[in-house]
């Protein structure tokens, strides 16, 4: 097939790949793993907390393949591998980046500081240097510091993968790799630093984000909206129907996401105690409420209770409860999940009507769901359930927490969108974002990966 020849690796591609490999090698040599932590020793490790965090880390890891299936089922036959690959390879690429320097940028000792507030980590912990087995006093003071690094690694992996839903079925794979690498370094690591690192400025402001509503879902969700607009709709949108090619695969993804989310949220307690239980409980309940709510919305407005609605609703509930999980009780969880189900389902409809082709609704679910969750955390967070809630919530009779929540949301959106815009512009001019029309028609699986998902 002469036609395919045109896509053979050109010398330019080769040097691109070479540079990338060289980078990796360099960093690999650089680090020497001598890990120290002045305040804690290995004897401070708590076995139960460690066991729970080991499990949670594994569960969060599973969420990325789960996302691959959730997304993969929703696209057309000819693009399913490309979508699955985008998630799967994030496990590879982002893990390497994270260990080499991402973790250090996000959680390392402050590099850029204004007063007490830190804006970025230094490279002091690059290559897992100084990230030892003794617990870190602040981050997780009963489990090995290195386990905390790995737990956070899984979050860093799934976040850019979430965005991939927006530009499904049309982005170049090479550009995708560059995009998630840059986005991880330039967007994710700083935002994580603000919210979760010892002296992060948003943390200092008192914003609460239990398990990543802002860092994970808002940052990725709004970026998704931006990319969807910048990369333009798929050929044929909105005239043609891009219906899911395999909803069983999507339900598999939803089921595994739900399962893995227990690690995401209850694991964020970083210990095996009452906070983990609070988070576990609200997580499950919000997912249930989201599924039921979205299903009923479908039933009302589309006459049928769809399984895609139930699955999407579960995910929306999970997203919305994420920032609140460890701070709210079971009934608040029903409300948060239910609201997320209704509002996200509306957001999805609205975005489609606006002519935006966020193909798999990364924005509608993660952007909107994350925002709902961050705001409702300001409504429901209860110091009774978790002593980390130091400012009063709306229900607790104050607006201080709500103010911090809104600020965190706005700052994250603004930063993520601006930096992502720059990254995308640069990539558009250098590598190009989209495959050609003919390639799009033929499908990314065969064009970008030389494989077909199903043969017979």
């Amino acid at each position, binding site marked *: 097939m002469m036609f395919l020849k045109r896509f053979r690796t050109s010398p330019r591609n080769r040097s691109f790949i070479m540079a990338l490999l060289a980078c990796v090698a360099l960093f690999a040599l650089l680090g020497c793993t001598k890990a120290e932590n002045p305040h804690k020793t290995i004897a401070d490790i708590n076995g139960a907390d460690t066991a729970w965090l080991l499990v949670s880390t594994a569960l969060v890891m599973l969420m990325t393949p789960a996302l691959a299936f959730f997304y993969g089922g929703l696209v057309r036959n000819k693009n399913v591998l490309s979508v699955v690959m985008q998630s799967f390879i994030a496990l590879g690429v982002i893990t390497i980046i994270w260990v080499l320097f991402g973790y250090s940028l996000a959680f390392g000792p402050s590099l850029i500081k204004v007063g007490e507030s830190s804006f970025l980590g230094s490279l002091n912990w690059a290559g897992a240097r100084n990230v030892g087995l003794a617990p870190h006093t602040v981050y997780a003071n009963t489990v090995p510091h290195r386990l905390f690094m790995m737990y956070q690694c899984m979050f860093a992996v799934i976040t850019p993968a979430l965005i991939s839903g927006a530009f499904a079925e049309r982005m170049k794979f090479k550009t995708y790799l560059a995009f998630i690498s840059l986005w991880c370094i330039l967007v994710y690591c700083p935002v994580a630093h603000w919210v979760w690192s010892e002296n992060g400025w948003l943390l200092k402001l008192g914003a609460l984000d239990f398990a990543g509503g802002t860092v994970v879902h808002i940052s990725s969700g709004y970026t998704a909206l931006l990319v969807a607009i910048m990369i333009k709709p798929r050929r044929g949108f*909105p005239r*043609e*129907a891009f*219906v899911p090619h395999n909803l069983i695969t999507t339900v598999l993804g939803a089921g595994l996401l739900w399962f893995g989310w227990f690690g995401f949220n209850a694991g964020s307690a970083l210990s095996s105690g009452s906070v983990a239980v609070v988070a576990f409980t609200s997580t499950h309940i919000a997912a249930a409420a989201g599924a039921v709510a979205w299903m009923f919305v479908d039933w009302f407005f*589309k006459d049928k209770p769809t399984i895609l609605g139930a699955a999407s609703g579960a995910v929306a509930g999970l997203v919305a409860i994420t920032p609140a999980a460890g701070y709210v009780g079971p009934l608040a969880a029903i409300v948060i999940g239910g609201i997320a189900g209704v509002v996200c389902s509306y957001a*999805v*409809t609205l*975005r*489609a*009507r606006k002519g935006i082709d966020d193909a798999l609704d990364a924005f509608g679910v993660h952007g909107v769901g994350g925002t709902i969750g961050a705001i409702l955390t300001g409504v429901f967070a209860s110091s009774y359930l978790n002593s980390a809630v130091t400012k009063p919530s709306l229900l607790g009779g104050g607006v201080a927490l709500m103010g911090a929540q809104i600020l965190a949301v706005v700052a994250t959106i603004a930063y993520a969108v601006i930096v992502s815009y720059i990254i995308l512009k640069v990539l558009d001019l250098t590598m190009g974002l989209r495959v050609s029309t003919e390639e799009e028609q033929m499908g990314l699986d065969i064009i970008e990966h030389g494989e077909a998902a199903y043969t017979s």
Partner: protein
Amino acid sequence: MKLLKCIIQPHKLEQVKDALNNIGIKGMTVTEVKGYGRQRGHKEIYRGLEYNIFFLPKIQLDVVVEDQLVNEATKAVLENARTGHIGDGKIFVMDVQNAIRIRTGEEGQDAL
């Protein structure tokens, strides 16, 4: 011999098969196809947008019959594939010059 190429609704296959069976039609071949016609697909709401699904799942039933059975077979299909709604499908009648049974090499009507 004639080939009756019948495009029918998938859920009518069982009934049509039985009807053909009853009039002694000894063989048929079924293909899953997608059809487009006056029915012009149907509207479907997906993620808040109304789409036109042009191609709908149909079953193509190919039956080769002796000339004298054509009318009866056609009638059987017409009566059993009909739901009365647009999209019920068509029967196309085509000429078949020969039929050969692979197992025995028999030709013509004997091969059916």
